[in-house]
């Protein structure tokens, strides 16, 4: 199957959203095509991910178990986000927060945004990878600024300017790498083929590789939200509509990381020694964790809290990758677990936002009484994200620390303390929202919360996380993770 077919349902859904008349039709066409397209993608990616099918490499396409894993995650998050979007955005449409034009624009851009992510994962060409990543920025800018309020427009502005600049620098890295490959004797389109670069990276001059990798790391690292370049992330995540925050946090950051990892392989195999890139990963991962720990303490906004938690988890994944090769297994587990849990949390945040119309923690009181399902699922999600067993993150963080303590004991202890701070801060904020009681005089009448589709999805995701945690301990699970790691990590 030529992967170009995956474009079709996305395009139909996107165009359909623009041209259909009523909001009902738009919702239906999006649901239909996202379940169709997402289902097809899962169906397509699973055999690769489970190593039933081997790598498939052509001039334009590259599908191995690592990209298949991410395609699977994108497809899953895509389906659930579409379902949540029809509820969340539909609700805002009914409340007249957005108009029909914005409603249609949302779905049209959303489809193209996901398509760009899939393209970034499935391509074998560094420049297409770049175009797709830049495409995710271009298509999602108006999603961040959907509400046309001061804050959301400002967040969109920051997001676009920082990410575009960063990704432009990434292009410099790609071009330098292409130039190095040209020097190394590759010709034609091969100088931009990821696979060809991986195969023949030894011949590329080391100076060029180092320079190129620094550009790529800084450039795409901006999109990952690494510590000094993270500025856009909390704003964009907190001001975007909640389903978009979920897809940003759960999967977009991972895709930028995917790009960095592809180039890490090229750099490592060129040096035939991963320690240089590993050190970069360790430093940036470490500082991202520390920064989010410090910022977490002063948060007054639950969506920003979740955004900083994303920075922290990206830092953790980076740090684990820096402890390769064993740390890389922890990183993959962490990536999977984080995707499910963080999307759950943002969906929950969306429910809270719908009911209270505010993202400030101090405005939200007595959640347990007023929104019992949401609050129960939200606190379960928070427990999962701070890696309380049986969360899948517990498995990965355990794996990471067992490595880190052995190699970098001091750093490991500092990170441990930072994680403790983060856990404390997140729990304190959440408990405050859930259990703090309102003053008698503001006690207004409220309807009891009904179980709705969001809660179903959150439950399903949390159950998946628990099952994953079990599965990661079985030898079958370890094997599959190991195979994935082998596909993207250079091992001496």
């Amino acid at each position, binding site marked *: 199957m030529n992967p170009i077919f995956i474009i079709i349902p996305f395009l139909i859904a996107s165009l359909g959203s623009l041209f259909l008349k009523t909001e009902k039709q738009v919702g239906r066409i999006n649901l239909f095509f996202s379940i169709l397209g997402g289902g097809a993608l899962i169906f397509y990616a699973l055999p690769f991910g489970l190593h039933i099918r081997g790598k498939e490499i052509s001039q334009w396409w590259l599908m191995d178990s690592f990209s298949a894993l991410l395609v699977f995650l994108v497809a899953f998050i895509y389906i659930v986000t579409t379902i949540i979007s029809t509820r969340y955005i539909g609700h805002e449409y009914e409340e007249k927060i957005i108009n029909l034009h914005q409603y249609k624009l949302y779905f049209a851009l959303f489809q193209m945004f996901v398509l760009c992510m899939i393209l970034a994962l499935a391509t074998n*060409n560094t*420049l*297409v990878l770049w*175009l797709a990543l*830049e*495409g995710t920025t*271009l298509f999602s*800018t*108006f999603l961040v*600024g959907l509400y*046309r*309020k*001061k*804050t959301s*427009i*400002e*967040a*969109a*502005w*920051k997001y*676009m*300017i920082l990410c*575009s*600049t960063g990704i*432009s*620098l990434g*292009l*410099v890295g790609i*071009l*330098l790498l*292409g*130039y190095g490959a*040209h*020097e190394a004797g590759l010709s034609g*389109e091969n*100088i*931009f083929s990821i696979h060809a670069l991986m195969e023949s990276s030894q011949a590329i*001059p080391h*100076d*060029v590789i180092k*320079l190129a990798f620094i550009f790529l790391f800084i450039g795409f690292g901006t999109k990952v939200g690494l510590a000094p370049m993270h500025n856009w992330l909390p*704003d964009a995540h907190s*001001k975007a509509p909640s389903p978009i925050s979920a897809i940003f946090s759960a999967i977009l950051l991972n895709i930028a990381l995917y790009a960095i990892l592809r180039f890490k392989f090229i750099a490592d195999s060129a040096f035939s020694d991963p320690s240089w890139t590993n050190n970069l990963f360790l430093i940036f991962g470490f500082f991202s964790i520390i920064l989010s720990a410090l910022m977490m303490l002063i948060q*007054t*906004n639950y969506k*920003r809290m979740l955004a900083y938690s994303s920075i922290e988890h990206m830092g953790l994944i980076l740090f684990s990758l820096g402890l390769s090769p064993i740390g890389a297994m922890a990183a993959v587990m962490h990536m999977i677990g984080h995707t499910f849990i963080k999307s759950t949390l943002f969906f929950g945040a969306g429910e809270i936002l719908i009911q209270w119309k505010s993202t400030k923690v101090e405005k939200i009181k007595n959640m347990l009484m007023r929104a019992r399902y949401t609050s129960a699922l939200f606190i379960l999600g928070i427990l999962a994200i701070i890696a309380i067993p049986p969360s899948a993150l517990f498995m990965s963080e355990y794996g990471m620390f067992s490595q880190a303590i052995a190699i970098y004991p001091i750093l490991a202890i500092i990170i441990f303390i930072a994680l403790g701070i983060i856990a404390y801060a997140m729990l304190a904020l959440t408990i405050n929202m859930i259990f703090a009681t309102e003053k008698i005089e503001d006690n207004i009448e409220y309807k009891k919360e009904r179980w709705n589709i969001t809660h179903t999805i959150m439950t399903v995701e949390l159950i998946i996380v628990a099952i994953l945690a079990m599965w990661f301990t079985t030898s079958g699970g370890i094997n599959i993770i190991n195979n994935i790691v082998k596909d993207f990590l250079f091992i001496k």
Partner: protein
Amino acid sequence: MSPIIATLIQIVFILLIAPLAPGLVRFVKARLQGRKGASPFLSYITLLTLLRKEMVISDVTSWIFRVAPFVVLGSSIALAMILPLIFTGGSLAQLSDFLVVAGILVVGSIFLVLGGLDAGSAFGGMGSSREITIATLLEPVVILIFSTLSFMANSSTIDGILKSQINFSEPYLLLSVIALILVALAENARYPVDNPATHLELTMVHEAMVLEYSGKYLALLEYASAIKLTVFSVLIANFLFPATLLNAFSWSAGNLLGAVFLAVMKIIVIMIGLAFLESMIVKMRFYRMSEYFSIAFVVAFLAMLVALLSSYNDTPIKYYIIFSIFTVISVVLLFGRVRLKAILRYYAFSSLSIAAIALSLISMVRKEEIIHLWIFAIFTIITKVLAVPYVISHIGHAKKSLTNLPSFLRPGKSYFLAIILLMLIYFTLKNISIVGLTEWNALLYTAVALIVLGITMMIIKRNIFSQIVGLLVIENGIAVFVLATVGSLPLMIEFGIFGVTVATAYILAILSAQINDLYGSTDTDDLRELSE
């Protein structure tokens, strides 16, 4: 045949064809303006009519007034005799030393000035004062142009310069010719220096000086200026196509016919070009004349610099280096500007220079890459010179408040910072050795300079529009980087990248319009809502 006959033929030809030149310009201009226009041969009849008319000469004039027309006409004819117009190596060719030529030109204009002063009328004095100012400003440029050329051709005569078969793969020649065209426009009292068609006291220069002349003397002066125009146009055409000249020692009647035909064609084409130019631009204010001559001087000076450097370094300076310099300079100028329009103009100019870089690389790449460079250049012009500035200025124009873009630094300091950065980049790049990139050093330097300047611009400028332009400058830097490293990209990708550029500019422009609506300003200092 003998060089004496050649020189005679040349002078006769010029004398015969000369009145046609101003007539042609008038005719084409009339057609361009939608009028029918007088016949191009009208000038002949005008001259004949003037010759038959009685002269009115003021009593207060001295012999200078009477001598001036003959000296002016004599200087023009002398030019027509010594310069290589149809033949090289004519019998008077040794006299065409550029200092002699400049001297003859000055003698002509000095007597014209004196003739204008002599009658003591107000207009004559005014015109003379203007003419001598222009002549003073013109002189160094003429000397600079011809000293560059004679240095490169190893001969101080214009004849020798043209004989040495100069070719245009050397950029100094193009620059010299551009400067020469600017000089020729001024020397012949054409737009934008003087308007030959009016007698408006505010603007006229040449016409003011000849205002007191009438009848035969006026005919002589008109004829002299027609000869000068013809000589200059043929000379410029000869610099562009030196191969069309005949050697005075070996030519035949057939050759001569061809050469004369070519000379007529040169005059016609250049006069049509002049008419187009004069229909498009307007005369400059007299006080802006110094700018005009500064431009001419800078261009001539740059030509000399390039010529000297390429002979000093052994490696000749190629066109792409010149255009890289233009790219960087226009970005540096953009750096200190505050008006959105000006910033976009400089941005468009730097993009244009990038397109020119791509075109000038054509001669140095493999055959299959040529088409890529063409596409690159064309799309750069379509997207970055036209579409992007249009989109941004269109949205910026809708909000009048956006025309001024404040910066954290004053313009002077911004330029200073830019120059410091350029020097830093130079020394940094010198110490980073990237294998094999030496060949394209200038391009690499340009690319890095643009990227760094773009990022700096995003930091020091306080306005969202400057941030957009900063981002676009970075993208331009990457475009140059493509040229410097891999040469060309696959076609689809190339289109994709241009598409991304336009889309980025479009989205950012829309966002900035929304910010302006919501915040009431575009100062990035006001974007502080999200500081929690």
